[in-house]
């Protein structure tokens, strides 16, 4: 039974990390209908921001907001230079962000080299929880994920900006007619979404080896999560990450991580196939 709690905590940890990545994706996709394939590279940039900042002596807890701001600015730049020209061509946004992801990843390889590097974790002491010793930093990650998701939902559902954003999600043209400045909304959405990816990269950096390929491993499960959960509602991201996160952890405990990835991806594809509007589409039926 000891390992049961350990497994549950692992599942919760992976779920919360996925949720953290998903929140940024779902904000961008929900509002702008842009499938941002560069999200994994924004994650990557967040992790490398921590690497650089820690190298010059910035304490870890300052690095996290710094990563949010830095990557948010990168997002702003990408929006200004590339995306604003192609918002009306949905397929081209997929392609352009795909090109962007290639370029960013390769730029990282050129600047930092292809090898993996380590970021020092701020908390190393394990804590006793339900009779298992568990990494205290992983618990902090869970907490951060919940807080960030909560903050995004509060903004979406309790502020006037959030109201405008939800209006844009429901019907862009109507929202525009009501005098919402869509250009400004898109710009800030993309920038905040990118910043959230950077934040998750920064938070995850101490838990994994920081290398140029680390983004892809998260962005694909995150995409499948929001599709499984249903892109129609932001809450779908939560359901999706719970399903994908916990099933991946369970299957990889049973067999191996490789089999887990194959099985979970296949299951996700089947789910998306039969429930095009995701799990949250079940309720509205």
């Amino acid at each position, binding site marked *: 039974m000891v390992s049961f709690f350990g497994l549950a905590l692992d599942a919760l940890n992976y779920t919360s990390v996925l949720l953290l990545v998903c929140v940024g994706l779902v904000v961008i996709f929900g509002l702008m209908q842009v499938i941002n394939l560069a999200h994994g590279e924004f994650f990557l940039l967040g992790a490398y921001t921590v690497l650089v900042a820690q190298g010059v002596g910035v304490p870890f807890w300052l690095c996290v907001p710094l990563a949010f701001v830095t990557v948010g600015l990168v997002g702003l730049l990408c929006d200004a230079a590339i995306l604003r020209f*192609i918002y009306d061509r949905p397929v081209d946004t997929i392609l352009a962000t*795909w090109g962007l992801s290639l370029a960013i990843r390769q730029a990282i390889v050129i600047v930092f080299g292809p090898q993996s590097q380590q970021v020092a974790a701020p908390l190393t002491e394990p804590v006793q929880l339900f009779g298992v010793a568990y990494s205290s930093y992983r618990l902090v990650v869970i907490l951060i994920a919940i807080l960030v998701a909560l903050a995004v939902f509060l903004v979406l559902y309790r502020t006037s900006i959030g109201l405008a954003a939800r209006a844009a999600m429901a019907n862009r043209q109507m929202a525009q007619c009501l005098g919402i400045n869509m250009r400004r909304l898109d710009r800030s959405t993309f920038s905040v979404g990118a910043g959230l990816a950077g934040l998750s990269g920064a938070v995850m950096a101490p838990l994994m080896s920081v290398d140029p390929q680390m983004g892809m491993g998260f962005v694909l499960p995150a995409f499948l999560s929001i599709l499984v959960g249903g892109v129609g509602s932001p809450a779908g991201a939560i359901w999706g990450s719970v399903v994908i996160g916990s099933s991946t952890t369970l299957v990889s405990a049973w067999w191996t991580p490789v089999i887990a*990835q194959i099985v979970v991806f296949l299951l996700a594809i089947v789910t*998306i*196939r039969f429930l095009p509007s995701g799990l949250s589409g079940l309720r509205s039926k």
Partner: protein
Amino acid sequence: MTLRLLPTLAVWAVLAVLPMLLGPWELAMFGQLLIYGIAAMSLAFIWGQGGLVSFGQALFFGAGAYAMSLTSKGMLPGIPDSPWLGLLLAVVAGAVFGGLIGAALFFGKGLRTAYFGIITIAAAVIAERVTTNWRYIGGFNGLLDVPPLPLPGGLDSADPFAGYLLVLGFALLAFLFLLAVERSPYGTVLRGIRCDERRIMSLGFFVPLWKVLALAISGGVAGLAGGLFATQFSFVSPAVIGLALSTEILIWAAVGGKAVLLAAFVGAIIVKYMESYLSETIGNYWLLVTGIAFIAVVVLFPQGLLGRFFALPQPRRLRRD
């Protein structure tokens, strides 16, 4: 009217006289470029005509390459170890994979086009994982010593001259086949589906079936390219089935021009040729440059750089007099 045919004819004429101009080593390299060109044409067909952006075109390419290698090495029980049979099975494998994925995604409620991209990415990742961990088909190292295709007169396709002409012949065949499909009434329906699926549906066409068929055709041609790849490089590894090659194929087709088959074909040849030269001198910067060039093409030239140059006139039955 014939003026617009000229660039197309010129390309094939130049490719046909290349054996007289190049040495054996360069000729072998050009033969390989043609194989990539076939793969780019297969994507241009499904993307430019059907409007389906496949981020996992290497899945079909790789299926063909593995089918070719397994057959010609005699690793499939009950099937004789003939390279030519292998090439046939490569086409079949690509088409079957394309058809299966299409059938799984398009029938019933169907899938939004944007999701199709993400699912093909996931499918390519799964394929790479499976081949890397499947020991019988070589695992991470892949399969070595894939035999060449035997040709009449005691030659085989490992000979640079004969190998080049063989690949060129298949490239021309693939081009003419896809062009015929594109210009047939079926191709017209396919372009209609790209523009407005619902309208074509209400005109009485069963759209899912037509899309599955298109993906099977594209998969079959990509499988042919994969089979030729396996025999000309004489090895196959998980790298030919995964995301990296899929991305490359996507870039070739986008840079050349997705709506015109020959533009994608020439795009692949030019990009890959530049890569073999420039990656030696500018090394790591090559991928950065291709990424940025890809973005620029997507934003500024949605029809590709060569699309207008190689565009052919409309089929006669669609012309207004």
